[in-house]
C-alpha cells in the first residue's frame, strides 16, 4: 500500500490515479476526502496528532505500507516582506512540518518490513531562487535538507527517501499565477517547457519501484535546474 498525502486534488490526486491505473494499492490522505473515490482518510498533515491517528489506523488494520508520497503542499507567491505572519506559518507548517510528521510517523510502518520508498516534494524555486517565492522556497529547501539526512537514517532499514522538485506543473496550485509568470519560470529550466502532472506521476512510479533501488537522498528536478 502506498500512502499519498494531498490526495484530493492536484499532483497528489494525479499520482493516486496513476498508481491505481497500474494496479497499485493507494491510501489517500487529505483534509477533505468526501470526493475521493478510493481508500482514504481525513488528515491535516500540519497536525502531528492527525498524522498519528492515520499511522495508528494503518497499524491497527494491519495494512502493509511500502511507500509514502508527501504531495500535500500549499503555495503563496508573494514577497516575503508583504506576506502575513499567519501565511508564513501555514506554509512552513504544511510543507515542511507536514512532511516531517508524515515521515516520522509513517516510516516506522516500513522499517518493520525493511523495505520502502518515501517521496517528498520540493520545488524548482529552491534551485532557481525565484523572486516572490522566498517563504515557499524556504519551506521546500527544508524538505530537501530533511530528505538527504532522513535518507541516511533510513538506509539501514532498506527504506529509500527521495525528493521530486517540479517546476510550475499545470495544477490548481498555480491558480492566480499569470501565464507570463509561468513562462518566465519555465524559461529558466534546462528543458524550458511546462510539464503536466503525468510527468511527475511517471517519476513517482519509478521511485516507488525496485528499478530505482540505487537512488536515495536525491532531489530530482522536473524540467532540470
Amino acid at each position, binding site marked *: 500500500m502506498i500512502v499519498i498525502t494531498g490526495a484530493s486534488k492536484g499532483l497528489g490526486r494525479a499520482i493516486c490515479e496513476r498508481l491505481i491505473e497500474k494496479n497499485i494499492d493507494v491510501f489517500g490522505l487529505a483534509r477533505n476526502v468526501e470526493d475521493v473515490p478510493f481508500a482514504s482518510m481525513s488528515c491535516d498533515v500540519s497536525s502531528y496528532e492527525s498524522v*498519528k491517528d492515520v*499511522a495508528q489506523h494503518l497499524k*491497527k488494520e494491519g495494512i502493509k505500507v511500502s511507500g509514502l508520497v508527501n504531495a500535500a503542499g500549499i503555495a503563496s507567491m508573494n514577497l516575503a516582506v508583504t506576506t502575513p505572519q499567519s501565511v508564513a506559518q501555514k506554509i512552513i507548517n504544511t510543507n515542511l512540518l507536514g512532511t516531517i510528521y508524515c515521515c*516520522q510517523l509513517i516510516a*516506522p510502518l516500513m*522499517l*518493520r518490513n525493511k523495505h520502502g520508498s518515501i517521496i517528498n516534494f520540493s520545488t524548482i524555486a529552491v534551485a532557481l531562487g525565484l523572486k516572490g517565492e522566498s517563504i515557499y522556497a524556504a519551506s521546500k529547501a527544508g524538505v530537501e535538507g530533511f530528505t538527504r539526512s532522513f535518507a541516511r*537514517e533510513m538506509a539501514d532499514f532498506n527504506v529509500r527517501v527521495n525528493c521530486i522538485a517540479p517546476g510550475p506543473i499545470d495544477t490548481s496550485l498555480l491558480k492566480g499565477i499569470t501565464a507570463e509568470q509561468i513562462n518566465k519560470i519555465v524559461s529558466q529550466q534546462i528543458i524550458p517547457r511546462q510539464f503536466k502532472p503525468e510527468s511527475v506521476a511517471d517519476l513517482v512510479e519509478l521511485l516507488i519501484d525496485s528499478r530505482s533501488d540505487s537512488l536515495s537522498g536525491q532531489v530530482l528536478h522536473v524540467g532540470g535546474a
Partner: protein
Amino acid sequence: MSATDSVKTEVFSQISQLLEDKSLTVTDDMPLIGGESVLDSMKLVELCLALEDKAADMGFEFDWTFDAAMSRSRSIFRTAGSLAAEFISQMEAKK
C-alpha cells in the same frame, strides 16, 4: 515473580538481544540514549519495533511516538528501567 516483574524481565531481554557486547547485563540504570548509551540509534529503533510486537502479543499497543518519549530529560529511553516502567504503565493503562 509478579506479573510486572515478568514483563520487566521481558523488556530487559529484548534490550539484551540487541547489545553488541553480550557480556553486559541489563540493569535498571543502563542508559539507552545519550553519550553513555549501550545502543546506537538504529538499535533503539529496532528495540521500539520489537516492543511494539511484544505489546501486540500481550494485547495492547505500545506507543513510543509521543512527545515525552523523545525528550532528553523526560525520555522513556533514559534508562532500561525507565523504558520498562513506561512499557508496564502503558500495558496497565490499556488493559
